[in-house]
């Protein structure tokens, strides 16, 4: 009666994982994606993960196995053999409008690890191919609606007319600004918290003066526009970086800004020998996370239900959990409710507490919060007393406050700056809305 048991909309890390897990359990599942090929990453801002620390309600253990790396999701209880290596990041740099550099470094334990999202997808695709999953590519999902006992999904293959296929359960894994969430009315009580694009150049031979580590560049003098640019190191031969933008105003400003930064700014000497390996971009609409990530016969995975920053490991974990939930649901048990309980209680801190998102984004808010001139002086002062720790105690959420704590303790800091920093420490999301955010 139904064309498929399960239709998975969107074949990113969550979708492919869900398809493979369902197929392994003998459920007829199909993945639908608009992309031509699934084993290549086209999304910007996707190449890092937080391992060996608490993030997204999970503690990921990394184990190197020759050319491969085994990620064990200790709390969810599964592991994924990633067919590549990871690179640890021990340093983080912030550059102010006047070109002053502030560095945070750890000696022993890295802040985060860098992986290759394309390789991650290749690994998942390989697993899915082994399981014998079918994917429908070059197909856009226009609409989904409830029918008795299942879901009807309107799809359109490239250049063809609309078709309707039916399934018993629908998995929406179509990421930020999910079309399924919109069509099924899940965004009604989720006010849009911001939207904007980011563009990214993947470059090699970038001669930064730093020995690894990510670099955040602020200020109109450096970028030509308000906002910031982030250089994230990535796997490659020599000094390979992903240069990402987050700029105010029309989308195309991001492109103008990155071009200005590379060719005209005071840092253009870094890019003299650089070669662009790839260009990526993404647009995002940020909605508060869903409290109940399912409706009727549809379940939402990863970023489609969260605010953002599920990252590749979080999405993969959601894919696994979602597949288990759907399997239970098909057997007549209450799988979706279990998934919701997991979603709200143990996974994704950011779903429970919006404040976490503010903490997470704090280090990119120094400039609009403090003002460019203060930042310059503060960083110049702090440059004499670098922030070096053996082991960074905590998770990505405590990073912002740790940096503030160090800046406050720098000798010679003016009392009013100290107060302003103290205010930033306790700032809530509502406070940030008052200062303009690029995204």
């Amino acid at each position, binding site marked *: 009666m139904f064309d498929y048991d399960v239709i998975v909309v969107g074949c990113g890390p969550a979708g492919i994982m869900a398809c493979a897990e369902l197929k392994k359990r003998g459920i007829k599942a199909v993945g639908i994606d*608009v*992309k*031509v*090929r699934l084993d*290549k990453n*086209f*999304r*910007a801002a996707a190449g890092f993960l937080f391992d060996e620390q608490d993030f997204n309600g999970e503690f990921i253990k990394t184990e190197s196995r020759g050319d491969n790396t085994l990620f064990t999701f200790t709390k969810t209880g599964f592991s994924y053999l990633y067919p590549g290596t990871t690179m640890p990041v021990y340093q983080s740099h912030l550059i102010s409008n006047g070109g002053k550099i502030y560095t945070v470094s750890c000696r022993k334990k890295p802040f985060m690890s860098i992986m290759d999202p394309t390789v991650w997808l290749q690994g998942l695709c390989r697993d899915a191919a082994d399981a014998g999953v079918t994917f429908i590519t*070059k197909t*856009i*999902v*226009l*609409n989904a609606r409830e029918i008795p006992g299942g879901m009807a999904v*309107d799809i*359109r293959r*490239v*250049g063809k*007319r*609309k078709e309707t296929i039916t399934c018993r359960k629908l998995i929406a894994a179509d990421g*930020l*600004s999910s*079309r399924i969430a919109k069509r099924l009315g899940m965004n009604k009580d989720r006010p849009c918290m911001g939207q904007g*694009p*980011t*563009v990214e150049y993947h470059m090699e031979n970038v001669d930064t003066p730093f020995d690894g580590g990510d670099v955040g560049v602020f200020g109109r003098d450096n970028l030509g526009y308000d906002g910031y640019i982030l250089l994230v190191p990535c796997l490659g031969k020599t000094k390979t970086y992903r240069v990402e933008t987050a700029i105010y105003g*029309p*989308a*195309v400003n*991001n*492109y103008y800004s990155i071009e200005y930064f590379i060719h005209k700014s005071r840092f253009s000497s870094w890019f003299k020998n650089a070669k662009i390996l*790839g*260009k*990526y*971009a*993404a*647009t995002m609409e940020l909605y508060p996370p869903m409290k109940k990530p399912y409706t009727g016969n549809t379940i939402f995975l990863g970023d489609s239900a969260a605010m953002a920053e599920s990252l590749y490991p979080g999405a993969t974990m959601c894919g696994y959990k979602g597949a288990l939930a759907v399997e239970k649901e098909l057997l007549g048990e209450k799988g979706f409710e279990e998934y919701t309980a997991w979603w709200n209680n143990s996974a994704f801190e950011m779903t429970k507490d919006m404040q976490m998102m503010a903490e997470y984004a704090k280090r990119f808010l120094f400039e609009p919060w403090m003002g460019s001139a203060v930042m310059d002086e503060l960083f110049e002062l702090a440059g004499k007393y670098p922030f070096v720790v053996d082991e960074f105690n905590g998770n990505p959420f405590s990073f912002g406050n740790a940096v503030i704590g160090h800046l406050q303790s720098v000798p010679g800091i003016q009392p009013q700056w100290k107060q302003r920093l103290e205010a930033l420490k306790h700032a809530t999301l509502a406070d940030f809305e008052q200062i303009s955010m690029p995204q």
Partner: protein
Amino acid sequence: MVTLTINGKNVKAREGATVLEAARAAGIEIPTLCHNDALEPYGACRLCIVEIEQNGRTIIDSSCTYPVSDGLTVTTDSDRVIEGRKLVIELLLSRCPNVKKVQELAQEYEVADFAREWDKDNEYCILCGLCVRACNEVVQAGAIQFAGNGSDRIVDSPFHTSAEDCIACGSCAFVCPTGIIKKNDLETTAVCTPEGTEEEGPKREILNWQVEYDLQICTACGNPFAPVIHLKKIAEEHGYQMEFFSRCPSCRSYPEIDEELCTACNACIVVCPVGAIQFIEKGQEDQTSRIFKQNCCGCHSCTDVCGWGAVKIQ
């Protein structure tokens, strides 16, 4: 191809065509009331009668329903034909003396208005069936039908109540030769009640079928352009989203994607409200987005989000 003679002139026509089609293609005018090129022949008004000679036998028949065949000899203006037409017009005139089209025909064929001497039957509908056929064949709504028999025959909505299946497309009013179908586009009106003032409309009403529907307003120019229910039907039939009809046809301009600049980032695909943008292969392994114009609603969301300036309006 079939060869026949019309008014002594050799005419070629495609097989399966009607005599009326063949004559009109050859520049010979035959008057009609119930004929429309978009609809199946019906033969209701009998105004298009001609004299047809085949195998030595002569008959009078309606040209709109008579198929052409080889060796047919047709006369469109013989005395017998004119006499027949006069009779038809006379009968029409006695039924509908106030219909302009019938009056014109009467003048052209010099038919005296005998009916004026008696009590007049002030009927407007000539029962040509154009509205019914347009609704069923072209629009495929099936909202109206003939009702009653003989002299009681009328065109009506089911049970003489509001036509449920009507989508207020206005095709019936468009094809009606007499102008009896009253279609009005109403502007926004304020309705004052004790509770307060409520705004209504803009709306379209068709009085004959007792329907009234809201009109879709163009998001660009603010003018109403078609009933929402009509657009919904088209959307359902052809697989469009309702957002496709957010702009009126004259306000649409279509963007195009520069495939050299496109990095296949998915941003335009995500924001496109109608799913008109899809990935296609670019070279061996790469991909690029492309706007499929037949699905594009012309809203320009894609130009706003493209970080590379690759989506441009023509």
